[in-house]
Every structure is written in C-alpha cells, then in structure tokens.
C-alpha cells in the first residue's frame, strides 16, 4: 500500500522520554521545596468585616448606607446578583454577563443589613428601629436611606457623629448597631451562615467588603489595582503571575483603560488572540516566522552542521 510517507533517511538519536520526565520531576520538586524553605510564602492577614469595621468604621457605615439605599457596587452590579438593567458588560450586542442569568441573588438591604440585624437579641432600640423600617412603605425607606447616605457622604470624614440633623427615620440606629455587630465579628458569622455544615461560600462578606473603599485602598497600596498591572502582582516582594502580562496589559491602554466594558472587551480580545495562537500553522506569514528566525537551527546546530558538510 502506498502511503505517500517517506522514511527518514538521516541520522537518528536515542531519546529516553521517561528518563527526561523523571529527571525534570525530581529537579522541579527539589527546587520547589528548597525555594519554599528559603523564601516561604506571602503572609498577609485576612481582611474580614470585623477588621474593616474596626480599622475604618466611617467607611463601613457609609458602605452600609449604600447597601441600604441600593447604590452600592453589589446592589447595582446586575447578573449574577441582581437584575439591574443596563449594568451588564457586552461584546457588541451579546451581553455575556446576562447569559447565565441571576444565579446568586443578593438583596443588599435584606442580606447585608436588615437580615443580620434581626438576629441581634435583647436590644429594644434596635427592635423598635427595625419595626419602624419594616412597617414603612418602600418609598419612605428609600427616602430615609438616601437622605442618610447623602448626609453621611457630605459629613467631615464621613463621620456619623458629624451628620447634619434630618429625617433619617430608623437608619442611624440600624447602622450604628450594624457597626457594633460588625466590630464584634457577628456580621462575618451572619453573612457566612448557610445550609451546609462547613462555611465555604464567602460571596456575601467579600462583596460587602469590596463595596467599601478599605479593601481597594489596601489593594492599591500593594500594587494590586487593575490599572497597576495588579493581575500579575503578588503582595510584598514576592513574584506574582507574570504569565498574565498580556491580559493585564490591555487594561493599561485605551480604549480598555477608559471603558466600562473593559472586562468583556479584554476577555474577547484574549479569546481571539488565543484562537490565533492555536491556528498559527494555518496563518500565512505567521507560520513562516521559524524560517525567518531559525532558532531551531541554533538548537539542532550539530545536525545542521552535519548536513552542510
């Protein structure tokens, strides 16, 4: 049978793939253990709602006010947390964020503020405040919450003690108690409470913390911000994910650096570039680069020297 395949007539060389694999595995394992012993690993303390509310109580109360009046990052995020219209990032007409729908519904008022507060025992003032809140119409609740959020934003250092007097209903009492609960660690526990025995779903506390400026300030101080090439950085003096350089590069240049749609656009561009990488053997010009830059001839120079002579 003619297969059209010609047998290699040049020199051959024995090659033990298993031996190379074992040697590489041993070398990498020894290097990993040795480097871990010498350099250890990043050791940043975990940021919890408790540490945040004790470190930046004014930021915590201001953030809680935005959760209550529905203007926080989480409350306006859209899918997968809520149905905020026009919040989703798109590639052209395709709204990637909405494809999977609202899979993890979060109502910031009930989940972050009112729900946890209803678990606080033996506090008559809080019970009265919650009863006033729950007995009010939605419009009135929004008026109280927005009014307090607005006044708190304008207060010196966003200090609740400096807020101008006004009709904020039960909001100041609710947020003061929420701060106390947060500082004691109770809010961390309340937001982690879930059906399964082991608490592994940190979505709610993480979203709440991320809505404030404390986490972002800490991240920016460690060069972890999106516009600081943060995706490829690690805390301290440790090397990070250097292989993400191209992904994070796009976030530094226009139009991505100024677009509210940057995540979707960068994802789409990287998907396109990854496809191009897979298809290199089929792309005219690009597939000829090894002919113009013959690095393989340098690696296999003995062979090429042999066939020349």
């Amino acid at each position, binding site marked *: 049978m003619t297969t059209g395949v010609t047998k290699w007539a040049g*020199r*051959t*060389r*024995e090659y033990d793939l298993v031996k190379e694999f074992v040697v590489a595995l041993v070398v990498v394992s020894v290097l990993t253990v040795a480097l871990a*012993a*010498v*350099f*250890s690993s*990043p*050791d*940043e303390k975990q940021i919890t709602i408790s540490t945040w509310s004790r470190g930046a109580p004014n930021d915590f109360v201001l953030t809680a006010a935005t959760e209550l009046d529905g203007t926080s990052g989480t409350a306006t995020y859209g899918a997968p947390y809520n149905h905020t219209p026009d919040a989703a990032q798109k590639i052209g007409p395709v709204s990637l964020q909405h494809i999977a729908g609202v899979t993890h519904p979060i109502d910031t008022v009930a989940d972050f503020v009112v729900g946890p507060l209803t678990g606080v025992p033996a506090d008559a003032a809080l019970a009265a405040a919650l009863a006033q809140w729950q007995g009010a119409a939605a419009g009135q609740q929004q008026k109280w919450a927005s009014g307090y959020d607005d006044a708190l934003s304008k207060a010196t250092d966003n200090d609740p003690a400096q807020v101008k007097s006004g009709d904020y209903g039960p909001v100041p009492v609710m947020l003061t108690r929420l701060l106390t609960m947060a500082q004691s660690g109770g809010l961390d526990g309340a937001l982690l409470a879930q059906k399964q025995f082991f608490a592994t779903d940190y979505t709610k506390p993480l979203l709440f913390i991320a809505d404030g400026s404390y986490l972002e300030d800490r991240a920016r101080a*460690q*060069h972890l911000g999106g516009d*600081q*090439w943060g995706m*490829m*950085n*690690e*805390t*301290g*003096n*440790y*090397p*990070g994910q*250097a292989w993400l350089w191209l992904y994070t590069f796009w976030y*530094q*240049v226009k139009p991505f650096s100024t677009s509210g749609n940057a995540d979707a656009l960068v994802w789409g561009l990287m998907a396109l570039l990854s496809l191009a990488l897979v298809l290199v053997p089929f792309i005219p010009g690009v597939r000829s680069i090894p002919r113009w830059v013959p*690095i393989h001839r*340098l*690696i296999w120079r*003995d062979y090429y020297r042999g066939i020349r002579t």
Partner: protein
Amino acid sequence: MLVMGAPINLNHPGHYVHWGVIQISVANLVVISVMVVLFVLAMLLPFPKGRNRR
C-alpha cells in the same frame, strides 16, 4: 512553640519599576530574567553526548 522563619523574608512592601505605561515588580522582573537566561542557556548549551546511531 518555636516557629522557624524563612531565611529570606519577602513580606515587605514591594519594589516596582515604572517605564511609561509599563509597571512591573522587581520580583517579577527577576523571575522573567531568570526564565530568559534559562531559555538562552537551553539554546546554547550543547546536548549531552549520547550514543548516536545511524
């Protein structure tokens, strides 16, 4: 309990190099440089001499 610390502690504020839009940590720069050096060495160092057969 005695806890042994790492001989080289890297849990200090990082150092960064800025060059226009490019911003890279010195640690990443070191790792990338080591990778480039290894790549060049892999190209230039001769293969171990095995038993050739024709």
